[in-house]
Every structure is written in C-alpha cells, then in structure tokens.
C-alpha cells in the first residue's frame, strides 16, 4: 500500500477523476486505523465475506484472502485494464497502470 500512496500523485492523478479503492477482507476499523497510521490517501472497502473478491476473481480459496489483483473500471462501468496479480514492487507495473488510466481520464483537465 505504501507504493500506492507514493504513486498517488502521478499514477492516480491525485484522485482527480480517478478513484482508488483498496479492498480486503479486513474489518473497516482495521482498515481505518492502518490508513491513519500510514496516511494512505486511499478509499478502503471492507469485504469481510469476500463476496466482492469472489465476484471479481481475486479470492484465493487456499488462504481465504484476496490475491493482489487490480482492475481498472472505466467510466462506462466495464473492466478496461487488469493486472492479475499486480506486481507492486515492479516500476513497470505502475508505468503500465498509469498508461491505462491516462487513456480513460481526459488529458490534464486541470490545465485550463
């Protein structure tokens, strides 16, 4: 999650027309306290029953946790890009993700 935080301005355009939702099976209070301690500018969602993880095919039945799968949902509500799994320590993973987001988000709508 540190990498997401550190990439927030660039890859996630500081949240401008991009919403980053991090999902795990943790309870919401655990997510909130972690986010506070590490100052994550991320919206967390608590999928304690893993229903959403299963719906997206991120659920790992062996560990009963979600794999580090990432999906970009476009403005039309369809999956526009996926990284399964997202290689969070590989700089290329962010370059590729940033490219996929830039295709969907109007080029620098803040400039004028």
């Amino acid at each position: 999650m540190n990498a997401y935080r550190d990439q927030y301005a660039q890859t996630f355009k500081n949240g401008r027309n991009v919403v980053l939702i991090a999902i795990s099976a943790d309870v919401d209070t655990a997510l909130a306290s972690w986010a506070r301690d590490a100052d994550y500018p991320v919206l967390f969602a608590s999928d304690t029953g893993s229903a959403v993880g299963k719906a997206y095919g991120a659920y790992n039945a062996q560990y009963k946790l979600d794999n580090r799968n990432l999906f970009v949902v476009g403005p039309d509500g369809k999956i526009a890009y996926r990284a399964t799994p997202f290689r969070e320590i590989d700089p290329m993973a962010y370059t590729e993700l940033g490219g996929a987001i830039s295709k969907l988000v109007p080029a620098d709508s803040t400039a004028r």
Partner: protein
Amino acid sequence: MLTTLVLAALLQQPAVPPAPPPGPPALAVGAQAPDFSLPGATRYGTLKNPVRLSDYKGKTVVLAFFFKARTRG
C-alpha cells in the same frame, strides 16, 4: 483389532488430499464490473455510508485487492 481397523481406514485415504478448488477466474477486460456495496474507511476513520461502485459511474475506478491490512504491498 481396533488398531488394525483404524490403520486400514487410514490406508484407504488418498496420500495427498485433493487441492481445494481454485477461486473463480479473474474478470476479463471488457466485462461489466459487478457493482458492490461495502463498509468503507479512510485515513480519517470509518465511513457512515457504504462504498458503492455505482456511485462512481462516469469516473475511472481502480479496484486494488490486497491480502491484509498492515502487511507489505
């Protein structure tokens, strides 16, 4: 006698238990993203209203699944 029966029963077990079924496959590019409604949290605390994907229609949403809070990544 009992020991023999137990042993016989044990021997009939397959040596390796069958692997649990793998999870469903990851959604493909182009698929409709299933809507959801989940309790939410930010660095400022837990949210009163649930997080709904459909609330962000028209925006680009990155859904980042991860293992567990307070682990790396």
